[in-house]
């Protein structure tokens, strides 16, 4: 069994106040392991994003415990949570969130810069990460000169460049066509399997199911179904989906 990177126990989250109060999460137990690509699926309002925010140390649970690489998030203040994100996480956002005034290489380098890695060594690592997503030749391009798929690949390079233990991706393929979506998922699957990272992808997109090692379904704040790797449980054989 691979090492557990994120462990959540009995996570509950109440949003809003008074009559508008909503139980977004109602007792979630979840572990994310190295070398595993997990899909988190569920309808709108099911609690996917709330769970992602809590697992990504951006939102505190109302109750329950969360540990990241063995460190509990309980009592951690905002700066301590930011440090946890810096030390252990890479994020891929639905809208890419690249810095429009920086080049692709600088966007990737930014993930190292906030970790205190500067200069030529950082620039070299950023170019290498761009190489991993097949965009080394676009290192000097600004985001507005890149296609949506290329921008998302830059965002993945940014997420992996600092070798974080976990990659959290929020709807990474929703704005992309089929080919670009598959390319993105192939890179994320390689990151999980070959770089031995825990990858959690929140998605609505059924096209990416074949890339998953594990699928978790959430509904009304509860995990209602979990499927693990294996042709009998996943709808499309993973090996076929990974073919270019």
């Amino acid at each position, binding site marked *: 069994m691979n090492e557990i990177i994120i462990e959540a126990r009995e996570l509950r989250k109440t949003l809003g106040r008074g009559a508008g109060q909503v139980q977004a999460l109602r007792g979630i137990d979840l572990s994310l392991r190295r070398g595993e690509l997990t899909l988190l699926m569920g309808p709108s309002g099911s609690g996917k994003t709330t769970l*992602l925010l809590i697992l990504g140390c951006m939102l505190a649970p109302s109750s329950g415990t969360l540990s990241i690489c063995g460190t509990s998030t309980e009592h951690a203040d905002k700066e301590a949570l930011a440090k946890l*994100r810096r030390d252990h996480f890479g994020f891929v956002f639905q809208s890419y969130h690249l810095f429009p005034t920086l080049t692709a290489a600088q966007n990737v380098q930014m993930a190292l810069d906030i970790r205190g890695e500067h200069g030529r060594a950082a620039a070299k690592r950023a170019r290498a990460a761009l190489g991993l997503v097949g965009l080394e030749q676009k290192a000097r391009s600004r985001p507005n000169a890149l296609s949506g798929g290329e921008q998302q690949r830059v965002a993945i390079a940014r997420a992996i460049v600092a070798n974080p233990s976990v990659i959290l991706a929020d709807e990474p393929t929703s704005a992309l066509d089929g080919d670009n979506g598959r390319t993105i998922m192939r890179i994320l699957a390689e990151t999980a399997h070959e770089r031995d990272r825990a990858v959690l992808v929140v998605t609505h997109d059924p096209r990416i199911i074949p890339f998953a090692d594990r699928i978790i379904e959430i509904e009304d704040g509860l995990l209602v179904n979990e499927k693990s790797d294996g042709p009998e449980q996943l709808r499309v054989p993973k090996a076929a989906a990974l073919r270019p």
Partner: protein
Amino acid sequence: MSLVMTLASRNLFHDRLRFIATLVGIVFSVVLVMIQMGLFLGFGRMVTTMIDHANADLWVIPKGAKCFEDPSLLDLKLREKVAAVDGVASVVPLVIGFSDWRLDSGEMTPVFVIGTDLKEGVLSPWNVVDGDVHALSQSGGVAVDRSYFDRLGIKGLGATAEIRGRRVKVVALTDGIRSFTTTPFVFVDLKNARLYTGTFPNRASDLVARLKPDTDRAKAIDAVRAQVGDAEVLTADEFRSRSRSFWLFGTGAGAALFAGALLGVIVGTVIVAQTLYSSTKDHLSEFATLRAMGSSNNYIYNVIIYQALLNAVIGFVLAAAIGYVVVEMTAKSALPIVITPWLVAALLALTIVMCVSSGIGAIIRVVRIDPATVFMR
């Protein structure tokens, strides 16, 4: 090198129109402060120019005299008393006062007469560019500054006019001895000064004393003070300080200049704060992304502070260039703007403080960023 500087500069230069508006605000503010403070320094120098150029260790002045131009008079008997004090080398009377200069055309213009014993060399005209200062001892000889030709209705050396009904002749010309009151200075011999100002022979405006070398100054000053009764004894520095205080603060001129400078600082701070805040607001999603990626708040503060510093340095360089031109343009005017290296350094520091403190609003906005918003859009 960290990307903080890169991100800050790109954010700043990205919206060129806003950047230019910010620079205009900073330049306006710094130039305004520079001119006000330059005027303050220039005024401070102008009001003490006679004291600065007098060869005096001590000034014996009428009690309560507020400045060099004060019209009060002393009893000349004090001269002998002061001269008798051990350590005093010489005591020279000075007669000053306003009078009327009558042009050949019959027009009158006020002048400020300065007369002393020229042989003593206590307060002779300086920067003499034409003529002979020794000729002032001749009957009716005067020295004037060539910048006042129009005011005095003359064309140069040898010109004639009347002061208080007595014929005078320009025998020496100076360059750059200008009065902040715009009333021309006229240097004359002591005897003539009495005639032109209506001062009795037993009176003097001030007594200028010089001490012997190796004299115990403090002791000599105390001894002089003991001899002069109601009159006051001031060192050159004390008299300079008193004159400056009177003209700058007693008249309210200095306060007005300071108020103008303060206004400049406020305007500059508000403009920079407003543009930094709106720039930060425009880039909030980027700052939220940084925060979501795990950057510390300090990292983001640094981006904002670098933006402020870039504004400050670029704005200051432009303002300094304008300031240099203004200094050159006013160098020969009645009230030149004086910019010293200290003033430049202080203005740079002020500009940096102004711009960095302007970033506080932006920083407060950034502190409230919720990194989770990155997942909401």
